[in-house]
């Protein structure tokens, strides 16, 4: 029986990793469709890690980052946050919308990123649904550009009750003209984790 991420067994973590893998596959397919080019993906790295380690992996607490947040709810509840370095966000939007001279992300590019975050988030949620048969839907996406530590504090606060660990998925999408390094963090309510494990026939 587990009550937080720290207490998950290796086998349970493997299940989460597999969800991460399938989600990443879905995400690559979705990205290929939007970009209208072939998108390869690396095997994603899925880690259960502490807040500080995740922040360090993203360049340190004060690194300016674009974050898209989606809630999921229904038979399972949680939150997915998609994090992208500002430079990467700009270059992917240059491809999608066209280059401009501005150093800032235009409103149009920001909403483009929001949509990509939404699609990636949905890809992971669909992976959970497909594996478990649970009926889960995602909220509208929310976007913010700020220090990564401040952005990541939002889901960690929301799920602060289930421990200080989070699921950190790092993945490289390699397109024909552009590479995109994506980082996602996923939080699920402890009951949701239990339901997922049960549905997959694991002891909890």
């Amino acid at each position: 029986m587990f009550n937080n991420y720290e207490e998950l067994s290796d086998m349970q973590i493997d299940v989460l990793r597999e969800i991460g893998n399938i989600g990443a596959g879905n995400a690559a397919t979705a990205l290929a469709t939007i970009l209208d080019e072939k998108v390869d993906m690396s095997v994603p790295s899925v880690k259960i890690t502490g807040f500080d380690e995740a922040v360090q992996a993203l360049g340190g607490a004060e690194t300016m980052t674009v974050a898209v947040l989606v809630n999921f709810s229904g038979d399972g509840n949680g939150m997915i946050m998609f994090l992208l370095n500002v430079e990467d966000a700009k270059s992917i939007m240059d491809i999608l919308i066209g280059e401009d001279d501005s150093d800032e992300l235009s409103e149009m590019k920001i909403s483009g990123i929001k949509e990509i975050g939404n699609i990636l988030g949905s890809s992971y949620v669909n992976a959970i649904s497909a594996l478990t048969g649970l009926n889960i839907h995602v909220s509208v996406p929310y976007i913010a550009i700020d220090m990564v530590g401040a952005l990541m504090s939002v889901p960690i606060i929301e799920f602060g009750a289930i421990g200080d660990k989070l699921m950190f998925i790092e993945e490289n999408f390699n397109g024909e003209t552009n590479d995109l390094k994506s980082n996602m963090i996923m939080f699920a309510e402890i009951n949701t984790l239990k339901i997922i494990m049960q549905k997959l026939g694991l002891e909890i």
Partner: protein
Amino acid sequence: MSQLIVVGISDYKFAKEPEVIVTYALGSCVGVCLYDKVTKIGGLSHVMLPDSTSFSAKDINRKKFADTALVDLVQDLKRAGVGNNRMVAKIAGGAQMFEVQPGSKLGAIGERNIICVKQALSQLRIPIIAEDTGLNFGRTQYFDLATGTMKIQSLNRRIEEF
């Protein structure tokens, strides 16, 4: 200048002049600086959640919650020699990082943290003499124990001193 003392999320540190304590990238969390200008001893607490009472008491991290972290920090400061009535507070953070629909509980966390920090300080009879809270941006909070100055740094904004 001495080395910075870094406070992580759900933690607090205290020290004496000439040290500078810092906590990076406060979002919806609240950073609380407590200071005694006579001894020049002070502490900084990075509060993550408003209230510990809905969690089972036995294995909570007391430094995570407004109601427990500040009580403990005040105890530690008193043990370090800070007089009862000399402590003052400067607080920052509690932002709403994402613009969500009105009524969504997601938007209310920062505000709830601010309210609970203020309640805890009022119960401890510590006056708040400066505040940079709310709005929608992350803040790094420096606390200079030589002067008691709280310095707030944000992306694309002027550095502010309190």
